């Protein structure tokens, strides 16, 4: 029986890998055939970044079971550090993919460090208090980055806080310019980079969930006291999931920043955190494929199809959001659907079992 469950699970995981791979190949084919409109093409890399952010938040909210309202803060850390690294290495002769890797690694490491700093105090709290503290950290990160100045000159990197004059020598270059953020970014991230990071994140998440640690984390989610009573170290496992999640968000941030001309700290505010949370909840807690699909649709939809409604665009988006939540969660609508699709009854049970 146990083997059966595991096999079923890993089959589900392979389906997810497969769908992502097929989607990537299909997108690459359309792009290289030149058949994709530029509006859609320009959205692909940021879309990958939002998918990664949604996956990473799903680890915190779905697997660890803690509500985070400040996830964009980790993206911000990853975006600004990763982008700084890539720009500092611009003249180093490193190939584009090399700089991309450095940026993503630096971004995720520093976001992980931020994850430790935030996680240690935050994870001691419970429920909505934890959520508000993540919100608070998100706002703090935003304010700090808004006042951060980083430049590079032949003597190396220079940092400043609150004051734009950081003593750059001649021939130096401002990278992070306080409220103006980073401008003049060379766009080096690509759909392929996004695809690779998405796959890596999926591998990490699926293996974590199926591992001993993953089961400990989910036990903590389902019943913390019971889990602790059988000797699971709550702080250790919670922090582990939280830091991995922060690192992935950092990678998403680095990927995102390097797909834009400019990034400012304001981009990663409370609204962005909420946007990612919407992807996660709509896609289903703990359901990675769901997060991917939800992030794709909800990111692409308002920017393409809804544009024809001009002024009513965001109003329709809001209605779509409410309706989707009602359709997927209301028992009445569910019953109606169950009548329409009676043969899927067994699937429903399965879906609910691993929720």
């Amino acid at each position, binding site marked *: 029986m146990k083997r059966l469950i595991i096999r079923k699970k890993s089959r589900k995981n392979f389906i997810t890998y497969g769908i992502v791979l097929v989607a990537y190949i299909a997108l690459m084919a359309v792009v290289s055939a030149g058949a994709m409109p530029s509006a859609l093409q320009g959205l692909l890399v940021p879309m990958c970044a939002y998918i990664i952010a949604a996956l990473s938040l799903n680890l915190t909210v779905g697997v660890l079971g803690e509500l985070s309202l400040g996830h964009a803060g980790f993206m911000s850390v990853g975006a600004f550090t990763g982008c700084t690294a890539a720009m500092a290495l611009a003249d180093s002769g490193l190939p584009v993919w090399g700089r991309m890797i450095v940026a993503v690694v630096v971004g995720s490491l520093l976001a992980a460090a931020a994850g430790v700093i935030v996680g240690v*105090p935050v994870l001691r*709290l419970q429920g909505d*208090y934890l959520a508000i503290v993540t919100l608070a950290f998100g706002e703090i990160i935003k304010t700090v980055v808004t006042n951060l100045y980083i430049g590079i000159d032949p003597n190396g990197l220079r940092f400043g806080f609150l004051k734009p004059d950081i003593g750059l020598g001649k021939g130096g270059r401002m990278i992070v310019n306080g409220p103006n953020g980073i401008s003049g970014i060379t766009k080096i991230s690509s759909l392929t980079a996004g695809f690779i990071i998405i796959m890596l994140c999926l591998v990490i998440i699926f293996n974590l969930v199926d591992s001993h640690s993953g089961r400990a984390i989910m036990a903590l989610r389902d019943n*913390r006291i019971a889990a602790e009573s059988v000797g699971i170290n709550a702080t250790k496992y919670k922090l582990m999931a939280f830091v991995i999640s922060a690192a992935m968000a950092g990678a998403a941030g680095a990927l995102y920043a390097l797909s834009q001309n400019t990034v400012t700290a304001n981009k990663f505010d409370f609204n962005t955190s909420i946007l990612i949370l919407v992807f996660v909840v709509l896609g289903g807690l703990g359901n990675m494929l769901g997060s991917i699909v939800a992030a794709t649709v909800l990111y692409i939809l308002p920017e393409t199809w809804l544009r024809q409604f001009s002024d009513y665009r965001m*109003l329709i988006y809001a209605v779509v959001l409410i309706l989707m*939540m*009602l359709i997927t*969660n209301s028992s009445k609508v569910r019953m109606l659907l169950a009548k329409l699709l009676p043969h899927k009854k067994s699937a429903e049970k399965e879906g609910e079992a691993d929720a």
Partner: protein
Amino acid sequence: MSFINNLINGISLGSVYAIIALGYTMVYGIAKMLNFAHGDIIMVGAYICFFVCSGAGLSPILGILAAVLVCTVLGIVIEQLAYKPLRQVTSLAVLITAIGVSYFLQNAAQLLWTSNPRIFPAIFGNGGVQLGGDLTIPYKTLVTIGACVIIMVALILFTGKTRTGKAMRACSEDKDAAQLMGININSTISLTFAIGSALAAIAGVLLCAAYPKLIPTTGSMPGIKAFTAAVFGGIGSIPGAFLGGILLGVIEIFSSAYLSTELANAIVFLVLIVILLVKPTGLLGKKISEKV
């Protein structure tokens, strides 16, 4: 002197946060949901009052009454359409729906009333009570604090003494048990939303009387700050919301006055974090004993 001035300014700002936080905490305490659309109901209330007072030139009292009426109806409609069908499912689903409602209200307001800012009339006058020297407590601050205290006492009495109020508390303690005792959970929660929205209308009027810029996003930032204030004081606790609001305003003004205007917001949130680490359920929050 400037210290007392800053204190007065902080209390002025804090009283506005407090009155918004009261509505937040009321809804949270009973329905156990973070109503992110609360800030936008505030905005609707402020617009209604603006149109009655400035547009139609009627008295502010009528404006407040109209705002309360419209917001109460709006709150009930939102609750019936968007929140009620989700009562049995996870609180996260309701949270996202509330965000959807918030987007909806903001965008509907923009389509109806355009994004041009409007300046809310000074319905409580511009003067204040002189304390000697440069010190003045503006009337609007006194009115806001007065309103906070009245509402706070009324809410405490209502939830403590009346039958319906007790039913609300029972709902917040244990929904199933309350239902077994013959309490109609649905109508009790709907009533909570009606009261919460009426409070939002009053908060909207007081917010805009103190800080008169009225745009479709007027409610969102104060909404988030007030939510923070409610958590600060212990979410669900009515006196906690008042205390949290006032403290938040004072901390915000003091940190921008004495530390840095750039970092004021970060300092406010830092203090919040420190307080929650020391008192994990907020200043006046109830300790929750956990069971397996």
